[in-house]
């Protein structure tokens, strides 16, 4: 399933992103489980706010990490998160 790049992204019902001090990481919480995110996955998902699209997120990351070519990696990860049902478009 490919992800529309211009549509606002939000977390699916039951998924919650949270910074966990004890794990020194962003985690994605869902019923009876959690996924500990890598630093880059956390950087991507923490930009999901119900307003930003995939393109907005890529732009924001490019601005935060100038010089890095992030486009393909971020797109791949967002598609993965979408396929997994963590994030949805309206």
């Amino acid at each position, binding site marked *: 399933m490919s992800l529309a790049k211009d549509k606002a992204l939000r977390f699916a019902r*039951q998924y*919650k992103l*949270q910074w966990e001090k004890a794990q020194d990481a962003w985690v994605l*919480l869902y*019923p*009876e489980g*959690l996924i500990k995110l890598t630093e880059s996955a956390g950087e991507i998902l923490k930009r999901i706010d119900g307003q930003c699209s995939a393109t907005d997120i890529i732009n924001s990351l490019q601005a935060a990490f100038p010089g890095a070519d992030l486009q393909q990696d971020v797109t791949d990860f967002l598609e993965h998160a979408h396929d997994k049902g963590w994030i949805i478009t309206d």
Partner: protein
Amino acid sequence: MTKAGLSPTDSIKPPLWVNAEITYKCPLHCVFCYNPLNYASTFDKELTTEEWLKALREARELGAVQLGISGGEPLMRDDAEVIVAEASKMGYYVNLLTSGIGLTEKRIAAFKAGGLDQIQLSFQDSTKEMNDFLSSTRTFDLKLKVARLIKQYDYPMVLNVVLHRLNIDHIEQILEMAEEMQADHVELANSQYYAWAFKNREHLMPSREQLEHAEAVCNQFRARLGNKMKLYFVVPDYYQDRPKACMNGWGTVFLNIAPDGLALPCHEARMLPGLEFPNLRDHEVRSIWYESEAFNAYRGDGWMKEPCRSCDEKDKDFGGCRCQAFMLTGDARNADPVCSKSPHHSVVTDQVALAQQPRRPDDEVRPLIIFRDDGNSRRLS
């Protein structure tokens, strides 16, 4: 275990998951209940709201993030809303495990406003009117009402049905009911034989034929409904030849807090002899988790006997369940006898063989069953 030269935090990971059994009071009398037989002894010792919040705060500071609010029936406490809302504020992902009895619109609205993340509704095939339960319109109407409320407040409908010898043949009716309730997830787990279910084991264990039939019916529903209603079917572990990785290992992720404040590595550990479980009233979660003798007793593999000690699967299942090993072999350090490598495996296979005998008529079995009720609890204490 605290090894010389290592601080506890080097070798022991913090708890991730707290199960708060806020009360053992319950309007139901489930014959498969896993609450301790002497549950009634906790009634006058229940933690106060403040004591609960203190314990939850301490566990949260260590890193716990998943929280189950269970019981008994947690709705029997009128501070369930406060506990949920405060825990949610602390940053827990909060799951309420309820029979639905007492879940009014007022209460569900308060839970929602307080940040409750998920409701897991159990199907109470459990009353003394067990034989009639499927045809009981009262039960069915209540279920539909609660199911509608859960949907109305934008929760997924997660239904938990405990299966056993006496209800498993009604699987089709149960699933039709689940479908009518628009369940999103249905867990059909056979009862595990602890506590009340252990007392009633021979009346609760299904035959192989019953299991095969139930699984076939499940598959028909799966084929027809696909992702609309996700079904999970769990057979009794007695039918397996490797044990479950109980609690993902003793004292690794899971902290159970009983209504009286006893801190336990699982729901059942209270039964184990020789261990003094610490109480949240007297100790902080940090010292309980990292330093108490009870939580360190079966960490790692130093406690293991053969055949576990030299087994190449010991990192996969951690020797199974300590409580089951104790109940069935008399020594919690033995391999869980569900394992075919256990020298005690025949205690499991003998029980399974017994379950293949023809089913006795319900009216013959009923008087032999021990229902979970306060009178029986006091008698068995």
